[in-house]
Structure formats: C-alpha cells, structure tokens
C-alpha cells in the first residue's frame, strides 16, 4: 500500500515538474501573495469583490472587455437585485431589430452581458496605439500563477534599467514576458474613491481588482471548495468502511 502511495506521489511530482514554466529566460516569477480565496476553505471577501468591481468599472473597463460576464452575475458580489438593476441601467446597449426593422438603444438590464468598451478588435487597436487590450473574463486562469502574476504586473511598473531600450509607446514591466508592455501604469493612488472608506492605494486597488478578476474567472470556486470538503469527508468514511469490510472478507484466506 505504501508503495502505491509513494508511486502516486512520485508521478504527481513528475507532473508538477512538467507543469512548471517552460523557460526561465522569459519573465520574472511573480512573488506569492496570500489570497482569501486560496486554500481548501478559501472564499471571496465580498467587500473586496465590490471594491474590485469598482476599480474594474472605473479604470480597467475603459479598455478591457469582460464578455463572459452579465450584470446579473454581480448578485454574487453581494449587490442587491435593485443595485444590480441600477448598475446595468448606467449602460446604453444596442437591441433590436424592432418591429420596424431598426436597431435601437436602450438602458442595460441585468440579463445583458457587460458592455464592451470597443465595438471590435480593430476599433480597440485603433484606440490603443495598435495594441489589443485582452478580455479579462478568464485572465486569472489564462496566465501561469494567475492572481500573483496580475497583482505583480499591476504594481510592478518601474523606470527601465539603462540596458533596456523601450520601443515607442511601450512601458517597462519586468513581470510582463519580454519586459515591454503597451499598457501604461493603470492604477494611480486615489484613482477611485471606495464607498467603505478604504484608502485607495495602488496595492489595495490591485489586490481588490485581482480578487474580482479571480471571481470572474472562477465564479464556482466557493461552491466547488465547499462541496469538495464534504465529498472528501464522505469518501474518507466510505473508504475506511470498505477497508474494514475487505479485512473481514479476507480474514479466512491464508
């Protein structure tokens, strides 16, 4: 039995080694942060989620879409139904065609997807010096060590070392692969005013918006982990009972 466990561990270790970043020559590994949604019992801090959404809405959403999210999803952040209706109504969305065959503008509803800042990729590139701001719906899952990486990126802008020659319109960020990123430092202290009085430092805004993005990428995380704890506890009891039954069945075999 011990052999099997050791083998499983060895295989898991081999897999882990295989999943490490393929090359060290790329970007610097982002430092590990402690996240409330990490670990077996991890949950999202509702206040941080709401502050993070505030940052996304006021800062990131100027360039970055979140196409996979609908306003109704914001209920999970702790907003009431009326608050969600209010947030959705702040946006004008195109609907139609109506009975005359024309498209028309109307106020957003909770069932609408987040309104994208640009009509299409070409429009986004035209407005951003040729660069395309990626959709943020899955950002935390779509990068190695996602949450740590995005936090390091948002807070990691610094003047370029003398050896680096920046291309026109680019900014230096050692956490970005290649070190040169088109996005200017997005967060400035007090860029937003939080309703709960939390001081809007760059680090605070970054942590909050990363928490919001982590929720957006894995909205099932809390349900998943809570169900997982129950499933594992059930399986432990079941397996112990099966082991006892096995011992008893085999007691007479020599």
């Amino acid at each position, binding site marked *: *039995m011990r052999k*099997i466990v050791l*083998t*499983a561990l*060895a*295989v898991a270790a*081999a*897999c*882990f*080694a*295989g*999943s*490490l970043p*393929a*090359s060290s020559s*790329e970007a610097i590994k982002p430092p590990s942060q402690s996240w409330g949604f990490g670990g*077996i019992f991890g949950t999202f801090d509702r206040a941080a989620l709401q502050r993070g959404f505030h940052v996304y809405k006021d800062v990131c959403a100027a360039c970055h879409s979140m196409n*996979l999210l609908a306003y109704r*999803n914001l209920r999970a952040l702790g907003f009431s139904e009326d608050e969600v209706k209010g947030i959705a109504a702040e946006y004008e969305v195109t609907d139609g065609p109506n009975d005359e065959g024309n498209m028309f503008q109307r106020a957003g509803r909770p069932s609408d997807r987040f309104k994208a800042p640009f009509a299409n990729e070409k429009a986004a590139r035209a407005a951003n010096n040729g660069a395309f701001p*990626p959709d943020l*719906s*899955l950002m935390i*899952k*779509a*990068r*190695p060590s*996602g949450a740590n990486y995005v936090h390091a990126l948002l807070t990691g802008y610094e003047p370029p070392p003398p050896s680096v020659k920046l291309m026109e319109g680019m900014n230096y960020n050692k956490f970005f*692969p290649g070190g040169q990123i088109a996005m200017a430092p997005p967060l400035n202290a007090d860029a937003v005013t939080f309703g709960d009085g939390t001081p809007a430092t760059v680090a605070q805004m970054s942590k909050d918006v990363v928490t919001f993005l982590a929720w957006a*990428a894995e*909205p*099932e995380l809390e349900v*998943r*982990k809570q*169900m*997982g*704890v129950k*499933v*594992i506890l059930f*399986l*432990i009891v*079941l*397996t112990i009972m*099966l*082991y006892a*039954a*096995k011992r008893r*069945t*085999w007691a007479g*075999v020599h």
Partner: protein
Amino acid sequence: MSAPQSQNALIRWIDHRMPIFTFMHHELHEYPAPKNLSYWWNFGSLAGIVLVIMIVTGIWLAMHYTPHVDYAFQSVERIMRDVNYGWLIRYLHMNGASMFFLVVYIHLFRGMYYGSYKYPRELLWILGVVILLLMMATAFMGYVLPWGQMSFWGATVITNLFSAIPLFGDPIVTWLWGGFSVDNATLNRFFSLHYLLPFLIVGVVFLHLWALHRFGSNNPIGIDTKGPQDSIPFHPYYTIKDAFGTGVFLLVFAGFVFFAPNFFGEPDNYIPANPLVTPAHIVPEWYLLPFYAILRAIPDKLTGVIAMFGSILLLMALPWLDTSRVRSATYRPIYKQFFWVFVVDCLVLGYIGANPPEGWFIVIGRIATAYYFIHLLIIIPLLGKLERPLELPASISTPVIGSGAAQPQAARMEKP
C-alpha cells in the same frame, strides 16, 4: 458450471433461452482468481471505472457543447458558468482524462514488471496496447474541442506530423483537416470521432476481458495456479478489494477536481484559439509528453514520426522480445533493476517533452530516447538469455523458496 437455480421464474425463463445470468455468475462470481494478487492488480478494474465516468460525463457535456469555431469556447464557458453543476461535469471529464492515463500507465508498468504479457497472455497484452492507442487518439481530439490556444496549436502540430509521409503527406493532411488549415471542418470531425472512439474502446475492453478470462490473471509470483488451493472466487474477495481501491482512487480524483482542477491543464487553453498568434511553447497534455520528447529527439521529421509511433507499437512485440521464461521480476534480479531504470527513463522523457528543445534538454532527450529503444530491443532480449533467475516456488500456496519441493517452474511454461 452453471448458476444456482434462481427462485425467480422470470430469471429462469430468460436464462433457459439465453444463459446471460449463468454467464454473469460464472464470469463475475465464480471466476477463480489467484489468491495472492497485490494492490497493483487494482488498476485494471479502476481503468474500467474511469472509462465509465468519462463516457457518462462526456455524454452530459455533449448536451451543452457546440462544435463550431465561433461558439466552441463560449459554449464550454457556458457549461462552466450557467449550466447547473456544469463546472463539476467538465472538471470531472477534464481531470478524468489525466486519471485515466495515470491508472492505465500504472497498469501497463505492472504488466511489464510481472511479465503479464508472456504466454498465454500475448493477445491480452496486444489488445491492451490497442486500447492505449485508442485512448491517445480520443484524448488528443478531446483536448481540441474547447478551442483554446493549446487546442488549436496542438491540433496543428500533431496533424502536421502526417505531412512527413513521403509523396502523399500534404494531401493526407488536407484530407485530415477537411480544408487547408485546422478549421471548422476539423473541429466538427474531431467532435464526431471523440464521441465515437470511446465506444470502440469499450468494445476492445470487452475483448481484453474475454482474453483475460481465458486463463485468468497473472500474479505477483508469476507461476500458474496449480489447483483450487491457489485460487479464490473473484466475488466477494476481489470485488471488495477493488471497491476499497476505488475509494482511495476517488479521494485522489476528488482532490484534483475540487481543489486543483486546472493542475494538469495549460493556462493558454483559457485563451480562445487564434490562428494568428502562436503560443511561446506548444506542449501536449502530460500523458503524451514522453512520446512528444521522442518525436523531437530525432532531427529528421519522418524518422521522428516513425520513432514516436514505433515506440508505442513496439510494445505489442514485447511478448516476443522478452526471451525469459520467468514472468515475475521478483525472481529476475537483473531485470528488476533494468525495469526501474526504464520507468525513470520514461519519466525523464516526460520531463524533456515539457521543456523547449534547447541546450541540454536536446542531449538528455536523445539519450533517453535511445535508451527507450535499447531497453526494448536489446536489453530485454539479451537479459532473457544471460540472466540467471532465482528459484521459483512450487506453487502460490507455498511461496517459500527452497522448500524442498521447489523446482524450476519455467519448464512448465513452454510454448505449445
């Protein structure tokens, strides 16, 4: 032997006309199994259980999935977000694939260690390799379906391998794609085949079991059962042992599904497929990495492709490459050491496959590839001739070496 007469008239009526209950009683209840099977023998039935989990979760995923380049990625995200417990079904299916290969690789190495492929189980072994090939094809096509970056570029790299075929290479690739690049037609046919192949696997699994039940399981000592004192009925002894093993397995499986569901995945596959942007490193799923390493170890494309497919097909010849008449490595002191070297070699190949082909990785990859073939083609045939195996016990019930009655059992395994 027939089933004990059932009290139920309907069962008696059916069984008289089609003896399915007698058959089930014979193959699942009475079926004699060696009494000394270790936990390494759990992995066969475990693989069967994972296959069922994969088919059931797959059927439910297919109810919500859309095989179209414009909607595939979105439909998978819809499953993750809006379908009730869709995330659970998808993570079970996704991690189930990794678990399937983990279990099957342990099953395969167990067969190699205990010589389970030797007479009279050659065909059983060959059918196993056929299952492995079908699994690889199924897993590869399944990985393409979410239509993320790694799906698209993995499909491009692997289908392009066929362009190495002389003369007909390019037309064959065009035919596989259903167009001039990996596109909607490719995605559609991969979905169709990904749904079909698992049922072929089920068919070959039945043949695998049929061949198994002809002579029964091999065992850790590797000698045949000599009579009723050496065997026990499959039920209840191995049903309960397999059930306990399944409990342990499900704990590991659930650990990944609920707490690290993307552990085996690539972050790049959460970026929608983009034919204009190539990822920095295109890597297949972990279970294909050793073969990917063999492919890249050889500078010539055609030779590399042949080596990669050959490395799997060669396993089918193992019963004839191995000239030793002793099955179990327990009684083969030298082979036992080479076996573990081979296991390490396969892990090294996996590690190399995950890394870019540059610097020392190339050198190590070539040495490990060469050793893979040297082990199968040179070491195994030679060892059978040169190695002096330990004395085998007289029977499973008396596994004490040198107990007077012990005699070389190898002579009993002569080929007909």
